[in-house]
């Protein structure tokens, strides 16, 4: 029991930190709901994974890739804003997800089940989280410039589409890993809330991005601790903790 909690805690710390860090870009890019939508896009993958008994993160990741690819392709073919496309794909995924997910597993798919994390899962989560943060760290300035002025970015030879794709893939990895922590319904909140709190408290990008990472970690530690004490699922408690930080940030 104790060792299970330790695995859960370590996984949540790494994934939560990475989610917060990526979230700092999502807010400045005005994509605040994309993380939410992608969480839902993962649902059919989670459902199939539960149905056929393989790792939910892998199932989620495959469907996230499909979803991102589909949005990517459709974006060039219609004049509709990305948000509408994401919206359509998001409800389609939800519908499919509800149909394929075994009924008694549905709740875990939606709000996460961190107690099912193995040692191998923990190691994979930690390594991938560090990798994703390292990659995004290296292109962070380019992503910020692209988000404040496309013209400025292009005139400085920044390939906006390429970096946006890298960013979306990074989000896909973190959402897939985070599915176990917070579930498909709540993973979006783990991306957005720590970043929103950090934004309120920061005067520059350094404080903002690393602050978001720190608050992501703190939310997870607090959430998992509360879960250990109360016996409630960790996912909702983690989100609850992050919203508390957000509420506190509003007073500064």
């Amino acid at each position, binding site marked *: 029991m104790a060792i299970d909690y330790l695995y859960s805690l370590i996984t949540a710390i790494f994934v939560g930190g990475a989610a917060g860090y990526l979230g700092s870009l999502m807010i400045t890019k005005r994509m605040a709901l994309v993380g939410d939508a992608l969480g839902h896009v993962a649902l059919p993958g989670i459902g199939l994974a539960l149905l056929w008994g393989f790792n939910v993160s892998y199932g989620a990741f495959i469907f996230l890739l499909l979803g991102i690819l589909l949005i990517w392709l459709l974006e060039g073919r219609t004049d509709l804003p990305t948000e509408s496309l994401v919206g359509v794909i998001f409800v389609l995924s939800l519908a499919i997800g509800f149909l394929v997910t075994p009924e008694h597993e549905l709740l875990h798919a939606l709000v996460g089940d961190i107690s099912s994390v193995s040692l191998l899962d923990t190691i994979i989560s930690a390594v991938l989280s560090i990798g994703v943060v390292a990659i995004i760290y290296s292109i962070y300035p380019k992503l910020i410039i692209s988000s*404040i002025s496309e013209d400025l970015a292009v005139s400085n030879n920044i390939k906006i589409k390429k970096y946006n794709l890298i960013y979306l893939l990074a989000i896909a990895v973190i959402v897939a890993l985070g599915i176990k922590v917070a579930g498909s319904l709540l993973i979006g909140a783990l991306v957005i809330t720590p970043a929103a709190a950090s934004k309120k408290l920061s005067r520059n*990008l350094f404080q903002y991005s690393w602050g978001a990472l720190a608050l992501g970690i703190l939310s997870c530690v607090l959430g998992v601790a509360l879960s250990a004490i109360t016996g409630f699922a960790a996912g909702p408690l983690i989100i609850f903790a992050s919203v508390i930080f957000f509420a506190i940030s509003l007073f500064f």
Partner: protein
Amino acid sequence: MNKNILEVKNLNIAFNSNKVIDNLSFNLEEKENLVILGPNGAGKTILLKALLGVIPFEGEIKWKSGVKIGYVPQKFLPDKGIPLSVEEFFKFKKTGYEEMREALRAVGIKDLSILKNKIGVISSGQLQRVLIAWGLLGNPQVLLFDEPTAGIDIEGEETIYNLLAKIEKERDLAIILVTHDLSVVYKFADSVLCLNKKAVCYGAPQEVLGGDSLNRLYGGEIKLYKHNHGH
């Protein structure tokens, strides 16, 4: 001829069969100040975007090979709350402290405490200066400038043009400045391109800005406009 830093030939830009730029040709020489003048909706910003390579076009836009372009955008910062300090904004260009200070000095900012400020909260005049300084980093040979009047009061506007003239002298830059403000032409331009989808006039200001070309560019409004500014 080979002093040209930019050659534009038979440029056409259209959005959904709606022609925005119609068969435009012009050149920019080294150290030349070219003002692109035209009313709102004349395709000025579109032209700049084409020059930067941001949007597709037909025809030819040929920059001298290896030329470095600094760009000062009109619209900037969709989100005023972004926690980005001026210093971090400069460091995006991988600049050292000295170059940063030098660029700020060139735009008339001596108080370096601005580096610690959030870029969304400095005044629009200061932001304009910071953007010009950013454009100067990396020592470009050309500066593209989109409508510096936008969002700035007249007093600020005055100093921005003086500033540009000063920078131009100090650094031997070519500048392309886009504006709808006729008074800028006389203060600043070596040559002027009057744009209203097509080139209505092109050449040295004294030669081309006769009453007729201005009438064609602006319609009747221009007399009132000119009267207000005086000489």
